[in-house]
């Protein structure tokens, strides 16, 4: 819930943590489970999602400010899919270094609700600046959760952290499988709820 009285910084911080897209709303669970096999994969997909969230929010907010109309979802999806196709041409070589499902997951961003939720929910009642801060908070929150999950899974399953070579014998190689994705994501959401309860209303 966003209030008109909230400042841009408050919007950013609210989207970043208390109303984090993955931990609070469950948006982007697909990325948190399937796109966090390694920290570099998580960071790549998170960055792509952040760029798309900013793009769709900017277009949606501009359209509302100039035309006083909500941008239809199909137009935002078409825009996102064109942006991903362009991004794939530019950064396609990078995909070879990442786990095999990364290319498919990148394509799936074009139909992921986490990309369009803020653009559809925020822009009808606010300015371009506020919409961008809200989108930046949502995107940064998504990147942060994906990066943390990716790093944890990579450390436990491979004993590595990004480009840092083997640091220790991996204690839980199964964390590199889809099982690790489910368990780590479920644990993150449960811990988030516990932390919110402890911190009070």
């Amino acid at each position: 819930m966003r209030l008109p009285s909230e400042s841009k910084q408050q919007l950013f911080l609210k989207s970043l943590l208390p109303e984090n897209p993955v931990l609070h709303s469950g948006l982007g669970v697909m990325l948190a489970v399937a796109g966090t096999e390694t920290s570099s994969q998580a960071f790549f997909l998170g960055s792509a999602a952040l760029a798309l969230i900013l793009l769709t929010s900017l277009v949606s907010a501009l359209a509302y400010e100039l035309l006083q109309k909500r941008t239809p979802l199909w137009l935002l999806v078409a825009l996102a899919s064109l942006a991903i196709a362009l991004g794939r041409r530019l950064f396609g070589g990078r995909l070879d270094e990442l786990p095999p499902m990364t290319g498919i997951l990148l394509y799936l961003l074009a139909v992921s609700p986490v990309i369009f939720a803020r653009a559809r929910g925020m822009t009808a009642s606010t300015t371009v600046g506020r919409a961008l801060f809200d989108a930046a908070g949502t995107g940064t929150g998504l990147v942060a959760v994906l990066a943390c999950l990716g790093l944890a899974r990579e450390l436990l399953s491979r004993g590595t952290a990004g480009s840092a070579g083997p640091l220790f014998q991996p204690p839980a190689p199964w964390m590199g499988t889809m099982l690790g994705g489910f368990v780590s994501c479920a644990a993150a959401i449960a811990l988030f709820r516990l932390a919110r309860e402890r911190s009070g209303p």
Partner: protein
Amino acid sequence: MSDTLLQTLLAGFLFSSPLFSLGLIPGSALAATERPAHAWPYAVYGMLSVLLFVPLGWLLNAGLARLGLSSVDLPCYVLLLWGVNRALSRLFRPRPELPLQRPYFRANCAVLGAGLLAIGRFADSLPGAAVLAAGSAASFFVSVVVIAHFRERIETRGLSHRLAGWPSFLLLCALLWVAFEGLGSLLR
């Protein structure tokens, strides 16, 4: 059916489930699996979407490759997915309890992901892609129904509220993954 196609069907069922094998979980899956009564139409909807999308997507992919337009394949897939959604929404309109008209309440991530995987693995064979997709579609159906059944049982019997919703859904997916991997290891 030849042995190869049967093996592909089994591989699709056991190892290419969009939900628990690939982790392609649509946001709509949580609400759809709250009650088994809602899960059935959602499972059928997702299954039919995969079955329709894959052969059409394969033909689209082949056409785009022939025209040298493979770099814009994603917008074309998305357009095709929109058409499949429209067609199936008309079919499911008599069920008002299932809010399929809401744009997010669709299995798009799972359908597109399963379709891209099948097309990618069988780029030169439509039957192979369609059979793998049939296995994935059946697996999607089974997983949605099983998860809904168990969620209703565990969430109404004193499960901690911290584990209700997404955590219980994901942990059930984890259990299904273990079960199907175990079954698959016997057949490998």
